[in-house]
């Protein structure tokens, strides 16, 4: 494949962009759509003290769950961790801080970070201490709203079905989920893809994430986990 934009790299090269203590945002929802090869790379390279931002904590051996289960995260911003009991235990033991955000609002906060909007106003969970926390409020038209701030990350990792050498991405079915949002929110975005196709072979109407948002493309070694339902 012609590497016209120098975006196609090997896993070990991609891993050099990571550091201990980084804020990493990950695509995926219930394990599906989280890049397995990049996750294994992070584990194999021993990165730790990470702040993880994404929909959920996956399952103990699926998706971002593996990073959490191995104690590599000092903090997580997610909408739930119920599917990963290890995450719950780490939180209870005070070994991982967890900040909860309502699922749709979390997705919007990630998108806001991705499109350069500083915050959105929200009326979700207004009467709920865990949601409101120390969040700023804003009165508009006599009603109170929460100021839900944008989220960004040092590196975003996403999983796609296909990429061309510019990093234009196409996702597969419900593995799309939060990936197009996460792809925009990273200061650097690395996409793990199942297939790399020549420039010009993706239909421009069908591209979901424009390559503008993608810095690097890493070929996937394939989905390598056992599913929660197995």
């Amino acid at each position, binding site marked *: 494949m012609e590497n016209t934009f120098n975006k196609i790299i090997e896993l070990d090269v991609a891993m050099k962009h990571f550091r201990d203590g980084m804020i990493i945002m990950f695509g995926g*929802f*219930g*394990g*599906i*759509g989280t890049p397995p090869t990049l996750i294994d790379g992070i584990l194999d390279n021993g990165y730790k003290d990470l702040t993880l931002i994404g*929909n*959920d904590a996956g*399952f103990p051996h*699926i998706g971002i769950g593996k990073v959490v289960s191995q104690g590599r995260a000092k903090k997580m911003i*997610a*909408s*739930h*961790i*119920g*599917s990963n*009991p290890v995450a*719950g235990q780490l*939180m*209870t033991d005070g070994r991982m801080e*967890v900040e*909860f955000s*309502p*699922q*749709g*609002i979390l*997705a*919007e906060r990630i*998108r806001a970070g991705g499109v350069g909007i500083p915050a959105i106003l929200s*009326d*979700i*969970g207004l*009467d*709920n*201490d*865990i*949601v409101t926390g120390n969040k700023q409020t804003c009165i508009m038209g006599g009603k109170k709203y929460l100021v839900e701030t944008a989220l960004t990350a040092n590196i975003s990792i996403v999983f796609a*079905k296909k990429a061309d050498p510019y990093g234009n991405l196409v*996702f*597969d*079915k*419900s*593995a*799309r*989920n*939060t*990936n*197009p*949002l996460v792809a925009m929110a990273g200061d650097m975005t690395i996409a793990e893809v199942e297939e790399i196709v020549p420039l010009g072979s993706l239909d421009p109407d069908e591209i*979901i994430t424009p390559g503008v948002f993608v810095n690097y493309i890493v070929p996937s070694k394939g*989905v390598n986990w056992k*599913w*929660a*339902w197995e």
Partner: protein
Amino acid sequence: MGVEIRNRIAKRAAEEIKNGMIVNLGIGIPSLVPNHLPAGTNVMFHAENGITGMGPSPEKGKEDENLCNAGGFPVSIVKGASYCDSTIAFGMIRRGRVDMTILGSLEVSGKGDLANWIVPGKKVPGMGGAMELAQKAKKVIVLMNQTDKYGNPKIVDECTLPLTSARCVNMIITEMAVFQISSHGLTLTDLFTPYSINEVRAKTGCSFTIAENVRVIN
């Protein structure tokens, strides 16, 4: 709760689904609801992870590793289905385009307060999409047991557990009865055999009125 009773609850819930609706189903009994829809009902099942038009679970061995519901379990899709990102899936909910959500609960108050996401002192799993669905779906139906495992009513005057959302539940279906909740409070509309209204009263933690014509369901 036995399979038969769960199916009786699910079947009653299925009656609420009208042609053309967009419906979000929680886990547990709600997932049984589609099995009880009349053939030819054009309903689109919605999932928070970005599916409109979910179909039944695939046969074993035919699961697609990139196709799951919001709980991470394999599903299929129907004709006319589409995929979107999570912001759009929740946009449908907040914009009022999701006609109904059918979910389980720990407690519901007679005013329609919903408490289904957290038990203090136990693990805090996070709210997921429960708050958006409770606050913004056009109709919220709770399917649950009349009492908890200690025999205490789950329909109460004031919820003792932290609320998911206040005054959001429109209907409760238990193994004993069906209740509507409006600004006038709780009303019993249907009774499942063999229960009597007095038996229901004994297992309900708040007062309720009785509809003019209570339907009895076998």
